[in-house]
């Protein structure tokens, strides 16, 4: 299988601090790939560089064979990479439906067609009944779902999810996992997620990359990665090994 996303020796330095240090990995088309690691490991920085929110100091990021390093966020989205935000940012004063319609208008010029697409996605994310509510009135789990719906509406080939399970109850997590798995299975959508909730990572990901202090310390299938001594040490300390 060819790689849809390839990250090659990417680094990000903030003055003296090296947040991400020569990280390389590839995400195959159709895969669900998770990036895990303790707080401050550089996951969100890595994610922001792929999404175009910040440019890497070094290294090359390629999507579908084309370099996208340093492109602005909107250009990256138009190429087919959609994201959610760790701290959710729906358009607060707009209705749920309008939020998703805006995403769907990226590749559609007809508002009615975009609205129809938004309805399909809202039904998929269990938000259809709340479509006339203002986004600001939704609960956190609903806002997370709304972000996923809006990102999906832009018609991405790669979906970036930044801690989309954080703050969800176990049953809500399972529901989100089921939805994402179904979308991945039915449409072949590639998903790259940053996640703290291991329950979700184990259930979703086919491959896992572990970051610690900005460097990649392990990569592989989820079952083998969680048994890796380096990973256990980074999470639980040297005594646990």
């Amino acid at each position: 299988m060819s790689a849809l996303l390839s990250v090659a020796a990417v680094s990000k330095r903030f003055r003296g601090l090296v947040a991400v240090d020569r990280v390389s990995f590839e995400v195959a088309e159709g895969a669900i790939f998770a990036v895990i690691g303790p707080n401050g490991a550089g996951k969100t920085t890595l994610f922001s560089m792929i999404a175009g929110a910040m440019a890497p100091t070094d290294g090359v990021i390629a999507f579908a064979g084309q370099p996208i390093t340093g492109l602005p966020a909107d250009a990256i989205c138009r190429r087919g990479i959609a994201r959610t935000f760790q701290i959710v940012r729906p358009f607060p004063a707009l209705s749920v439906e309008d939020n998703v319609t805006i995403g769907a208008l990226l590749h559609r010029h007809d508002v009615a067609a975009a609205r129809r697409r938004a309805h399909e996605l809202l039904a998929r994310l269990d938000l259809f009944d709340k479509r006339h509510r203002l986004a600001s009135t939704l609960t956190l789990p609903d806002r997370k779902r709304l972000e996923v719906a809006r990102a999906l509406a832009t018609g991405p080939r790669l979906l970036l999810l930044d801690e989309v399970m954080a703050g969800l109850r176990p049953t809500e997590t399972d529901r989100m996992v089921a939805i994402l798995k179904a979308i991945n299975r039915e449409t072949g959508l590639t998903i790259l997620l940053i996640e703290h909730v291991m329950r979700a990572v184990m259930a979703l990901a086919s491959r896992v990359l572990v970051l610690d202090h900005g460097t990649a310390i392990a990569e592989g299938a989820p079952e083998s990665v969680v048994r890796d001594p380096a990973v256990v040490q980074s999470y639980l300390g040297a005594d646990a090994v």
Partner: protein
Amino acid sequence: MIARPVVDVPRRGAILLAALLAVLLTAPWIVNDYLITVLILILYFAYAGQAWNIMMGFAGQLSLGHAIYVGLGAYVAAALFTQFGVGPWLGLLAAIPVAAACGAIIGYLAFRFGVAGVYFAILTIAFAEFARIGFDHLSFVNASSGLFLPVTQHGHNDLWRLRGGPVMFYYVILAATVLAFALCRVLLRSRVGYFWLAIREDEQAARASGIDTFRYKMYAVMVSAAVTSFAGVFYAFFYNNLFPEQVFGISRSIEIILGPIIGGVGSLFGPIVGAFVLTGLAEMLNTVLMKFGVDLPGVKQVFYGICLLFVVVALPEGVWPAVARRLGVAGERR
């Protein structure tokens, strides 16, 4: 059941709108010349407020120097008329691109170099002040001694050259206000309108949704400037005199934005309701004071301040959203 079927909401709104339009259309037969002048002023501010609202209410870009587009429209059309005998409607065709180009320059400088929020607002003031000082020294349009349009007798209305009595001007500004309302409604429901709202709500999230925010902010400034320029053309031909100090002054810019802020930023009816409330009440106050023979300079400004204070404290969304809920026409999107 308290909830009304959804279809009723736009219907009620349409009936109310039709009734308001009917009253406004027949107004010249009902009220005297003084009240027509007041209505002209109200509609003028409703029109200019609607134009400003495209930038602020839709795309979230605060312009505190909108008088620059009024002034440019006024001066372009008036200069063409007095110097070359070109009529106001052809003058408008020249004023629109001039205002839009000016908006494009301000927008480009701000958006390309990341000037946003309060700093953007200050930039718009700076440009309006540049224009005021520049026109004060522009001898081609008589600099600070002002540009005067030849006044003709009122009896004869010449719509093509905009020479005539208040009733003609009243219908012109009424038509313009209706057109601006219709244009804004179309824009708000179009793809561009949705992208503007996204930018207003959260620019970073808008970018993450693939929206080229630079481009759409540029459109907002240019459309708003172009629409505003007609207010200037109207101003020039209605008042027949132009002084840089008056048309480009910061107080002019503030007058334009008070209506939509009081009526409700971002809504289609807000600028209209705001203009009626503000200008209507201010003129009433004027009349009452005149009846009692009281002459207080600056009373209008104090009154504007009180209105603004009241709205900011009691109705931060503006008057219209609250009124709309009362009338059962709150279905207006956003």
